[in-house]
């Protein structure tokens, strides 16, 4: 299947869902980039551009939800969760309102625009808000699943989307469960917990590791909150070592979630692959994925190093 960015799948899913469900969609002058325009072109009476004013947009979304209509509010992850963090926290999160923050251009795969637009803190920010569900889909099928589930949840949801066209890992995610990790492949030597773009990389890394005699499990964490602590502890016992891979800072994201889960119950070695407490930089997305070691080669090398091989 052809590569496709999760933001494109988001726009298509919204447009399809609009046929059967009542909800509003908001954007902050990035509708062509986030792909909410796909919905807006089809349902102009339910799409509202808020202009370049993300804080206002999040509180407007909260008011709409308080008046009984669910809302998807989109911008780049940097501005949605960064600039408007406090509006999300106080206007949306605290009253548990039915607002779905679907943010595109998360992580370093923003590419050439550089560090100012590469949000590597959004998972950390969003999962810190009580009651917030956090989805980070790996591909188009998982994005479609996450968007539909978000609308079924009565409360705030964050959906992390990317700019970069990614390989399709899944064909059907209808059996996914909110808060349950998806075991893509089992293994006994090391468990790779991946989310978003690193899921495809991890699947390839598993094959490379098998060639070297290493049995690696690959777990797709599409829901970062609520986190599947049970599965993390299972693999802490089964493999004794977990490698986390994410297009996010190693502080506060998936790596932290895994550490928090296992250290309470089944302490084990956890190696976190991600952005190491530094800002991103300008380059093409593909170059950056490789630069930060988030491709199959990077994951393979990290896994072998973690195993002392």
């Amino acid at each position, binding site marked *: 299947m052809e590569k496709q960015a999760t933001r494109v799948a988001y726009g298509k899913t919204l447009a399809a869902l609009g046929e059967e469900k009542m909800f*509003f969609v908001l954007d902050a002058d990035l509708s062509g980039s986030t792909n909410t325009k796909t919905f807006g072109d089809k349902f102009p009476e339910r799409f509202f551009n*808020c202009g370049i004013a993300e*804080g206002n947009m999040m509180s*407007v979304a909260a008011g709409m939800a*308080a008046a009984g209509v669910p809302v998807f509010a989109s911008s780049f992850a940097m501005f949605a969760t960064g600039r408007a963090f406090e509006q999300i926290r*106080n206007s949306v999160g*605290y*009253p548990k309102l039915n607002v779905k923050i679907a943010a595109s251009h998360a992580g370093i795969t923003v590419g050439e625009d550089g560090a100012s637009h590469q949000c590597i803190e959004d998972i950390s920010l969003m999962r810190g808000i009580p009651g917030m569900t956090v989805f980070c889909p790996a591909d188009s099928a998982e994005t479609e699943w996450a968007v539909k589930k978000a609308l079924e949840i009565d409360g705030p949801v964050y959906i992390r989307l990317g700019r970069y066209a990614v390989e399709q890992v899944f064909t059907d995610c209808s059996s996914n469960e909110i808060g349950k990790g998806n075991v893509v492949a089992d293994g006994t030597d090391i468990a790779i917990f991946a989310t978003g773009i690193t899921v495809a990389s991890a699947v390839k890394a598993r094959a490379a590791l098998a060639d070297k005699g290493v049995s690696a499990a690959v777990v797709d964490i599409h829901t970062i909150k609520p986190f599947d602590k049970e599965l993390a502890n299972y693999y802490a016992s089964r493999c004794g070592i977990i490698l986390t891979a994410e297009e996010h800072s190693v502080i506060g994201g998936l790596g932290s979630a895994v550490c928090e889960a296992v250290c309470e119950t089944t302490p084990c070695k956890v190696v976190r692959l991600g952005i190491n407490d530094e800002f991103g930089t300008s380059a093409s997305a593909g170059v950056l994925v490789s630069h930060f070691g988030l491709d199959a080669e990077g994951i393979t090398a990290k896994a072998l190093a973690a195993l002392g091989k």
Partner: protein
Amino acid sequence: MNVQLLQEKANAIRIGIIESTHAAKSGHPGGSLSCTELISYLYFYRMNIDPANPQWEDRDRFVLSKGHCAPALYSALAHRGFFEPSRLTELRKLGSFLQGHPDMKATPGVDMSTGSLGQGISAACGMALTAKATNKNWRVYTLLGDGECEEGQVWEAAMFAAHYKLDNLIAFVDFNGYQIDGAVTDVMNPTPIDEKFASFGWHTVVIDGHDYNAIDAAVEEALTIKDKPCAVIMKTVKGKGVSFMENNYKWHGVATNDEQKEQALNELKGVQA
């Protein structure tokens, strides 16, 4: 409109403000006392609401954007029948349904959780646009502080409301002249607030915020304005009704002690010291 009845309600609301903040040993009496006429006008005359059904879908909505003045809102809701006035002294206690700032999940009749300044007016815009987009006739009222108008988000919301022609929204500004650090014109001058709203495309009026007839005239006029939101700048007295609090910014965010409470209540109840 029965002005005498509204005055009686305002007085009862003021007593509730003093008693609840005294019991909590904290809270914001100054700005609660300055907006009491407006709150009583909305809850006892203007708004289409049902205390027996706080979540009624077609009710008018009120968003207290200056959320720290929750004691005024709570006192009005109690006297309007949303809950027993005797419960006002539960304010700010552990587990209370009366949180320090409005919590729509905790208190019957509170339409929006607020407290972080600038966000309430945006939420009110979202409600007003929802009413329009779903062909409903209910209206949205919001109340801002003058100091709150220093928040940039207020002007993002002002742009939004004008852009979407939210003529079902009225924003009141409680222009009592003081914020927590002092006079608004000394701390960070937000004036002229009326001209700012006008330049953003709002219909704007300036009135005496303690005069029910002026409030009503402003609202009646707003109801006739099409395709524009309306801002009503209310000149008020901070701490109104309690002599030692009036125009004293030090009463922005502190509660009375026992002696001060007695004096305040005696004044409000018309007892000579």
